[in-house]
């Protein structure tokens, strides 16, 4: 199936540009590859280079363009098990703030697993076990005293199959604010969220209808609106378009580009064009002979697709694999 199994994670140096380039459906630039190296995993405190401007990433406290650390979620030497089966082997990576990061890789390599460690959704799977550290703005989200409920409120998630609750459109969006004791004007928040999800015009006259009465693409945007309404900082998307037609897919992608001004987005996709079109950074994951997933390569999307460092990546993105 594949020729080599790297023992450790190899991530080529790369530097995303510090300022957000305007996002167009097909991205052209992310900045020169290979400049200003920041080694992964976890940069060593004393390590020279990579932390300066522009766009050193991964170090808490290292400001991007607004005094915040460039990294939001960081995985440090993560391994995951379902019962005795190891699904993820020793993955380290970080997710840049207000960027769109795409996770690509063959089916079953552990993309969803990895995504779901970022908001502790896997806690719901009884056999799941995790080693390593996951931090969010520097805080260990699996640390003692951290409640997964709080983590999930700040790291929202959109699923592969649209899963609106069997309630009205309004109640779907109001669900999160309500449970979180939102004090402001709910109507306004619902409208704002639906507008941001580019759904308002289509549903403003039927807010009381069931969320299930919408089309698939509308349902998925409703789920995005629902997620936005809780005001998370990160939105995880697990193949959000795989159940949608091309038109609805494009709508969602435009929406993502729009949302990434305020939100950090991580998207899992099987669609190479989608990853190429819609993301800033791409992480390629595959699995070893023991079917445990590991990161092969991470870099600016353009480079991953045009000039990958690894044979495995090249094979995959060019469709010779999986």
């Amino acid at each position: 199936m594949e020729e080599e199994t790297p023992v450790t994670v190899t991530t080529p140096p790369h530097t995303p540009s510090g300022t957000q380039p305007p996002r167009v459906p097909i991205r052209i630039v992310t900045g020169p590859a290979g400049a200003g190296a920041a080694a992964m995993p976890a940069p060593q405190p004393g390590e020279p280079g990579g932390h300066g401007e522009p766009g050193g990433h991964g170090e808490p406290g290292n400001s991007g363009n607004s005094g915040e650390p460039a990294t939001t979620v960081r995985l440090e030497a993560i391994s995951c098990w379902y019962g005795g089966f190891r699904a993820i082997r020793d993955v380290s990576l970080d997710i840049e703030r207000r960027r769109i990061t795409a996770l690509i890789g063959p089916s079953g390599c552990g993309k969803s697993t990895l995504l779901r460690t970022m908001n502790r959704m896997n806690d719901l799977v009884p056999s799941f076990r995790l080693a390593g550290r996951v931090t969010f703005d520097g805080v260990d989200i699996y640390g003692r005293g951290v409640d997964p409920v709080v983590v999930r409120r700040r790291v929202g998630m959109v699923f592969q199959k649209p899963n609106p609750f069997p309630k009205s459109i309004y109640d779907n969006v109001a669900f999160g604010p309500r449970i979180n004791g939102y004090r402001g004007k709910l109507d306004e928040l619902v409208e704002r969220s639906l507008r941001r999800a580019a759904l308002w015009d289509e549903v403003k006259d039927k807010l009381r209808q069931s969320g299930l009465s919408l089309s698939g693409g509308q349902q998925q945007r409703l789920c995005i609106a629902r997620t936005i309404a809780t005001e998370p900082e990160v939105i995880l998307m697990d193949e959000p378009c795989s159940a949608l037609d091309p038109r609805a897919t494009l709508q969602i992608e435009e929406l993502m580009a729009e949302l990434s001004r305020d939100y950090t987005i991580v998207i899992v996709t099987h669609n190479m064009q989608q990853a190429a079109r819609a993301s800033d950074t791409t992480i390629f994951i595959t699995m070893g002979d023991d079917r445990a997933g590991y990161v092969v390569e991470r870099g600016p999307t353009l480079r991953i697709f045009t000039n990958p460092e690894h044979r495995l990546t090249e094979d995959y993105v060019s469709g010779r694999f999986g």
Partner: protein
Amino acid sequence: MTAAPASFTRRTPVRERLVEAFLALSAAIGILTTVGIVAVLVFEAVEFFREVPLLEYLTGTVWSASIKPFRFGVLPLVTGTLLVAGLALLIAIPLGLVSGIYLAEYASPRIRTVLKPLLELIAGIPTVVLGFFAINFISPILLKSLVPGIGGFSVLAGGIVVGILVTPLIASLSEDALRAVPRSLREGAFAMGATKFEVVRRVVVPAALSGIMASIILAMSRAVGETMAVVLAVGANPQLTLDIRESVQTMTAFIVQISLGDTPAGSLQFKALFAVGATLFLMTLALNLLSDRVVARFRNRY
């Protein structure tokens, strides 16, 4: 009758045809039973309504089938039945629903494998045994000490035992309904930072509501048709009352009373048995059909 696949038809021997006829006939026995039950009830009830006007039966407030003057106003039996069933549901709905939620959402697989058979055990207790429990424990020991002025037979005692009887029904049917709620809905709610309880209360239970409703309606139907426990716990005093400390008579208890005594076959009382039976049958049939309908709506949901 269905034919065997085309290539076999010509060679189907007589013996196999006979077999198939027997199979089809067996399958039709259910229909025959239904038709038979309806025919018997209608036929005998019509005899009864020749002598007692339907309107008097339906609106009369006095039921006196064994003491002269005979009066056949069914309201006391109906209210007695509904009172017991209502009380039973008052107990069984919270108890059964909460147990069902616990089994479906909270209990670990190990606890579930212990708890489910125990619930089935309760569901499998013969109703006459629960009647004995009512007469031997609930009325004389439990209720005597808790409710002043309560007699040996009471609506309350009947409601409690019938409640015990139908709780497992509600529990296991609503557990099924809750489990049928797709996991994606739960995950969606969890992913928005809902606590477990919020997921259950605001997403899972509402999504399973029609299944839960259906289980409650079925429990109602069971409670209305329940006989032995009620005969022993509630007594045989057909009176129009809302006092749950009183003894009343349910429709089923009346049927038992008539068939226990040596009522002559052609008498009016004996015909009344069929009229009451028909009333009971119609009530439970309506409830069962209603629950079917609710379940069907539930199926189309996802």
